[in-house]
Each structure stands twice: as C-alpha cells, then as structure tokens.
C-alpha cells in the first residue's frame, strides 16, 4: 500500500468502496421499513398540500377559458378608459359561446368576481344569450341561400374531405370562421354527435360575415375549393345585410360590458399565474393601475393574522403559567400518585373536542353556570353579568383549557429527568429555595417550556373548531376564514394563499425561536 493512497481492504479494493457496499444492504432495509409510511405521507399529505399551495398562485382558468379574448386584450390600452373595439368583442363572443356550451362561463365568472364584484352576473347573463349573438346574419345568410341551413354545407366548407378533424381548404380564406368552427366540431364530437347533422351556432355565421368583409374580391375569386359559389354569392350580397355588431349584442345582454373596468380586470388576470390571491390575503388588490389597498371596510386579513398571532401567544402564555406548577408537582410526587394525576391531565383527550368546547359554552354564557354562581353569591349584579363567550375571552379560556395537556406533558417529561439532587446541591451550596429553583431548576426545565410552547403555539395558530364555536365574530382566527373560503365561498385560491402565509409565519417563528432559544434546547423528554 502506498503511503498516501487510499486505504485498501483485504481484497485490494478501496476500503471506502467495500464499506459502502457492506452498508448498502442495511440502508436498503432501513428504506424498505420506512417506505410504507413515506409513500402514505407523500400521497395523502405532501402531495395534496403541495397542490393546495399551488392553487394560491394558479390562474389558468382565465387564459384557458378565454384564449382568444385574453390574446386580443394584450394590445388593448386600458388607461384610455373606454371599452375595447369590435375585434375584442368578437373574440370574447367566440370564447364565451364555447365556454357556455361547455358550462365553464359561470366558474370563470365566479373566479373573476373575486377581483371585481359584479362580473359573475355579467358572465351568467351573457352566457345564456351568447349562442344567439349574430342571429341577424344567420337569418340573412339562410334567407339568401337555404344551403347555409344545411350542416353538410358547413362540413364541406370547413373540413378536409378525407379527414374531417382537419381544417378544410377555406381555413386560410376564413380564419375566424374556421377557428370557431373547429371548436364547434370538437364539441360536437366530444358529445358523440354527428357533425353533418349539427347546424353551427349563430356566432359562426357572424364570424363568416366578418371574414367575408375582410376578404378582397380578388382573393375570393381565386378560391376554387368547396362551396366557392356560395361564398361569392354571400360576398356579393354583403351590402344588403343588416349591420349589427357583437358590441351591441353584448351590451344588450348586459350593460356591464360597457364598463372598461370589467375588461381591465380580465386583462389584469389573463396570465397563467397571479399574485392576486396573495395580495388579497394581505388586504391589497391588483388593480389595472397596479397594487392598491383594499377599501377600508374590506380589510380584514391583516387584522385576523395579527389577532391569531397575539391570541395564540396569550394562550401559550396562559398554558405555561397554568401548566408549569402542575408539571412540577407531578414530577415531584411519588410515581403512584403522579400516574393517577397524569391520567386526570389526559382525561380531556377521552372526551370529544366538540363536547369540551360546548361545555364551555354552557359554563361561560351570560345565563350560564359561572355567571349564575357569581350573581347568586352577590359578586356581580344580575344586570352586570359578564360577557365571557362569543368574544376573545371565550376563545382564550376554552383554548387554554383544551391545549393545556400539550404544555403539561412535555414539561412533565423534561422535569422528570431533572434529578432532585440538583436542587439539593444548590441548597447545600447556600442557595435559598427560590434561588435554587430559579438558578438551577428552572434553566433545566427550559427545554420543556420550549417544546410545550412550540406545540401549543402551532396548534393554537391553526385552531378552528373552538374559535368557531365560542369565538363569536371578535374571537375568530384566520383559520376560520380559511375554512369559510374552502367550504362556503369556494375561493380556494384565496384560502390557499392565506394558508401559505400562515405556514410561512409558523416557519419564520420557528426560525426565530431557533435563533433565540436554540432548537437543541427543545426536548420532549
């Protein structure tokens, strides 16, 4: 073996290599042992949370449902303060008719309504009528030549003769019509119907008229594909057709389309991703003019976040104050007695959380047990009954009670490991009872306090049921708002954004705690 070469095993291979091989089997076995749990957690926990958090920035519904309109709106200058021109209305009409047929327009309306109140009803109303947009042109064309009534005419005009899924020869000549007809054809096929038996929607006729108006006479004459004669006939008759615009049709359906703010909102939220939910979570909103604060009466989230943090800290503090003496007593009693008392500490876990919270309602309400006793004993007058529920006091009392075991248990298990000789030693060295406790016992119980505080704080910050039941309006937490958005308003994006902020807040506090106390100083026993 050379002096500075790698150490070799008996068979001449590098020792490190041999060692790795020897340890591989062990590592694989260890991995196999944790694999079931790991997979379970990945599938049921990490992945759903990841997808939920992703919703806080995801905005694909707008560009996916309105591909033409969002593209057309890119060039629109919203600062002029006027609604966009006819081309954009046309693009919106094409998108909406497809969305309405696929029943996506109400979902889109709900999504955009988060950003600009009223859009939801505009979309709903328009969606009901959009398949009649351009009916005047449909009537004019079919009146000109009944062949336009026949689905076959459209099939031969718009699809390739050998492969109906492909655009036909007229695609270049009639781009808008072809584009819309392809979407129509896809929808018909998706529903399992025969394309040659389905007449296109009215907007397809309107698109044809728009295309024919754009097309030069010469270009049309050079076209020799199917239905060339029909197209020439229609082109010739164009000046006699009634003149309507999509813009008028939209405004007839709903006046709201005249509001440039509607269009500006759609433009602002036309990207695949958005910061809108996060801005909403901190009482800001994305306006066409940039980020702006929410109106005064809609700012609730910052206040709720602050309240959640402050109340969680108060609850944590009360748990320390109440739990420390109990844990101290438990750890200094003979084992038989302390086990019995420990069972009493754990007793609440055997009762449903709902039952415990509800019993606090019974105790704390104005006609409840505590008030009755206080009135009976003359401490308060009947008129001066204390308000202890449906406010912050109620939440703090009930949650302190419910979370107390999570403080006592880590404290107890840490205190159990502090030998009584330390305090004895301190006293033998001349320390009074208080000095011995404060200088010697207490510092050694700090890891338990740390563990209990982290446990209680993190549980409290995400608590939902108790604030919901006893918190009233003044005592609810941010989690109640998240639950509201998940289950009632169905604004999952905002719920996800609020949840992400909460998660980030916990992680930041954890980091701060680590810097201040040191996470090595946390012990569960």
């Amino acid at each position, binding site marked *: 073996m050379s002096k500075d070469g790698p150490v070799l095993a008996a068979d001449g291979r590098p020792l490190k290599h041999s060692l790795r091989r020897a340890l591989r089997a062990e590592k694989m076995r260890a991995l196999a042992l944790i694999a079931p749990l790991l997979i379970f957690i990945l599938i049921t926990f990490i992945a759903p949370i990841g997808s939920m958090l992703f919703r806080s920035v995801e905005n694909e519904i707008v560009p996916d449902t309105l591909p033409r309109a969002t593209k057309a709106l890119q060039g629109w200058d919203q600062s002029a303060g006027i609604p966009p021109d006819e081309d954009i209305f046309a693009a919106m009409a094409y998108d909406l008719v497809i969305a309405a047929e696929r029943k996506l327009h109400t979902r889109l309306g709900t999504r955009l309504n988060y950003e600009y109140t009223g859009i939801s009803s505009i979309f709903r109303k328009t969606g009901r009528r959009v398949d009649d947009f351009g009916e005047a042109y449909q009537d004019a064309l079919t009146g000109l030549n009944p062949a336009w009534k026949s689905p076959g005419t459209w099939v031969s005009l718009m699809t390739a003769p050998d492969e109906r899924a492909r655009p036909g020869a007229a695609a270049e000549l009639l781009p808008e019509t072809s584009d819309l007809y392809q979407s129509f054809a896809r929808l018909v096929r998706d529903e399992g119907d025969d394309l040659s038996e389905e007449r296109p929607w009215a907007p397809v006729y309107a698109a044809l008229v728009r295309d024919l108006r754009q097309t030069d006479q010469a270009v049309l004459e050079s076209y020799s594909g199917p239905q060339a004669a029909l197209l020439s006939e229609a082109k010739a008759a164009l000046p006699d057709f009634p003149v309507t615009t999509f813009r008028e049709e939209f405004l007839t359906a709903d006046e709201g389309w005249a509001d440039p703010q509607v269009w500006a909102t759609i433009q602002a939220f036309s990207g695949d991703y958005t910061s809108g939910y996060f801005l909403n979570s901190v009482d800001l909103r994305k306006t066409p003019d940039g980020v702006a604060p929410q109106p005064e009466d809609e700012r609730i989230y910052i206040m709720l976040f602050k309240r959640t943090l402050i109340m969680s800290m108060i609850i944590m503090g009360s748990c320390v104050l109440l739990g420390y003496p109990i844990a101290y007593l438990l750890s200094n009693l003979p084992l038989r007695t302390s086990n019995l008392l420990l069972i009493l500490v754990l007793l609440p876990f055997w009762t449903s959380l709902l039952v415990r919270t509800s019993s606090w309602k019974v105790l704390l309400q104005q006609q409840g047990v505590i008030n009755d006793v206080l009135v009976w004993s003359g401490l308060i007058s009947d008129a001066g009954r204390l308000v202890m529920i449906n406010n912050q006091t109620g939440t703090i009392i009930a949650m302190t009670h419910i979370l107390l075991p999570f403080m006592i248990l880590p404290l107890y298990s840490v205190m159990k490991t502090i030998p009584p000789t330390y305090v*004895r*030693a301190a*006293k*033998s*060295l001349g320390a009074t009872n208080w000095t011995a406790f404060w200088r010697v016992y207490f510092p050694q119980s700090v890891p338990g306090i740390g563990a209990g505080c982290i446990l209680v704080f993190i549980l409290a910050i995400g608590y939902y049921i108790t604030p919901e039941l006893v918190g009233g309006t003044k005592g609810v937490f941010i989690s109640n708002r998240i639950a509201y958005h998940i289950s009632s308003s169905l604004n999952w994006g905002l719920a996800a954004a609020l949840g992400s902020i909460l998660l980030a807040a916990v992680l930041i506090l954890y980091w701060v705690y680590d810097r201040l106390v040191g996470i090595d100083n946390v012990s569960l026993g």
Partner: protein
Amino acid sequence: MTEADAGFVVFDRVQKSYDGETLVVKDLNLSIGKGEFLTMLGPSGSGKTTCLMMLAGFESATHGEILLDGHPINNIPPHKRGIGMVFQNYALFPHMTVAENLAFPLEVRKIGKSEREAKVKRALEMVQMGAFGGRRPAQLSGGQQQRIALARALVFEPELVLMDEPLGALDKQLREHMQFEITRLAHSLGITTVYVTHDQTEALTMSDRVAVFDDGRIQQLAPPDLLYEAPENSFVAQFIGENNTLEGTVENITDGVAVVRLDDGELIDAKPVNVSKPGERTLVSIRPERVEIDKSRLSPGVHTVHAEVLEFIYMGDIYRTRLRVAGNEDFVIKTRNAPDQRRLRPGEHIEIGWLPEDCRALDA
C-alpha cells in the same frame, strides 16, 4: 483528635422514621471531632445515608438532636448550615460552566466578583483542573467531574464536608487515585469530613474512624485497624474484609483463652469477645491470612483442626486456597507467594491452626 476538638458534630439520641411504623435510624449517638475524617459504612438500607441527609438538612430527625459546633441545627434550613456536600452523581449544574458552578456558592453568599474569581481559580488549581473553567460538565470525564464537585463543595470554605458515595461511579483505578486525593485535601485543609460509602476498602484506607452501620444502629465505631483486627460482633467481622466463621459451643474459658468445641467435635482456641461462660453458642471468626498451615510455626499445645483442600487459586502476590473445615466448605486461607511457600493441591488433607488471639469468639 484532641479532647478539646471532640464534639464538633454531635448526634444525640437521634431517631428517624419515614412511615411512623419502623425506625430507619434507631437511637444514634455519635460525636465527630473537628478535623476528623469519619466514614459511615454499611450495607444499603442500613441508615447511613439517612444520617448524612439529616446532617445536611434534607431530612429532619424524628427524635433527638443534631449539634454542629455546639449549636442545635434541627430547625436550620440546609442553605444556612454552611455544610459542603459532594453527591453521588456529582450534581454539577449542567447548564453552567465549571467556573460558574464553582462561583455559584460564592454568588449566593454575595461575595464580590474579583474575590469570587480568585477563589474559583484557587479551588480549581487545588484539584488540578485549572484549565477547565470554561468547559461544561458534560464535556468532562467522570473523574474530572468528581474533582469539580469536590472543588465546588470546598470553594466556600465550609468547616464540614459531607460526601455521599462520591466515588461510586468511577472505575477501580480512578477510584483509588481519588481516595488518596480526597484524604490529602481533607487533611491539608483541616476540614471535618463525613463520608458515606458501602465500599469497605474505601472506608479502611481513607478514614480516621469508621462507623459501621447496620439495621439503623452503629455496630462499631473504631479506627480502621481496630475495626479489621478486633471486630466487636459477627456482623462487623463479616462485613469488614474477608472472614472465616465456624460455629461451636464454648467448652471453657481460662486465662483469656476460650476453648470452643466445633459442631463436628473438634476443639479450637479462641479469644472470648462476646462470650463469658461455658455452654454458650458462639461464632468464631478468623481472617484468612492469619491461618497457619505449617504446624512447626505454631506454639506448642495449641489445638489444630483437620482440613481438606478443595481448591487452589493462584492470584499473583498470594495463593488463595479453599478448604473444608468442620463441615464449612467456604473456609478460605491466603498465603503469601514466597519461594518457600507450599502450594496445596486439591484433595490434600492438612492440619491448620492459629494464634488464639487471632481467632475471635463472637456472638452466635
């Protein structure tokens, strides 16, 4: 120990009971002189640690009085007694450095910073740990922690130091070294030391006097050599050192020599200690190294006993031979490994004897 110093610590008819039914300490009377190194030795449950805890103030005496330097201390809380104490597991505060541990007793006594630092430094140097002031207890070996615990108990210059099995957790070599170190320190500083142990070697090598505890009582209080060579009862004889016992009945007592008839009929000579008249049952006790296998070295006329060699063990400096004597198969003798020494072989039959004063006839 001079007469004037006698009674620095006094236990006066002290009793202790935890449950009100049994006495853990029964009528303890003990006087410890100033500067004395006294060891409380006994099996576990004998009451020795309870006595120490009563002295330290962590347990209260159920009855009787404990005096320190002439003043009763029964009602003085531990932190006002000014007694240094070394605990079994050292009890060094894990969240403080070594220097902070040592400064603790000085801080609570409100001693100024510069004086404190000087005293800590001196105490650390006293136990040869001067370079370790900044370390945490967990970073020290067992022996080093032991030294720090000792220094902490001494740093505030108490006149009395209590040690509760302080060397129990150390390995044999370190323990022997620390035994020497503790006695050296105790004597050079002139402090009174009460030391509790169940290790009799420790008690014999370190102490001025040893109090052997059993069943809540002091069985014997004597300097180590007397304790070993002149045990006053069979418990002390068996507890201290290795010991052979033979049962028998006193035949007669003449001129301070008792003739004892063993249960198999053989006669031996013994020194009467706890027996006074013929016919009494007795347990005779003899140390393994005082048994003579060479008949020519015994004084003429003494009784000898028949023995059969069962086992011979070579132990380096000595030979250890197990014999069957008067039905007792655990009769052990130790002989020095010398050039002229015989090595007995198992199965050999020999005659053994001893000087009458080496064999003590004790209570049965």
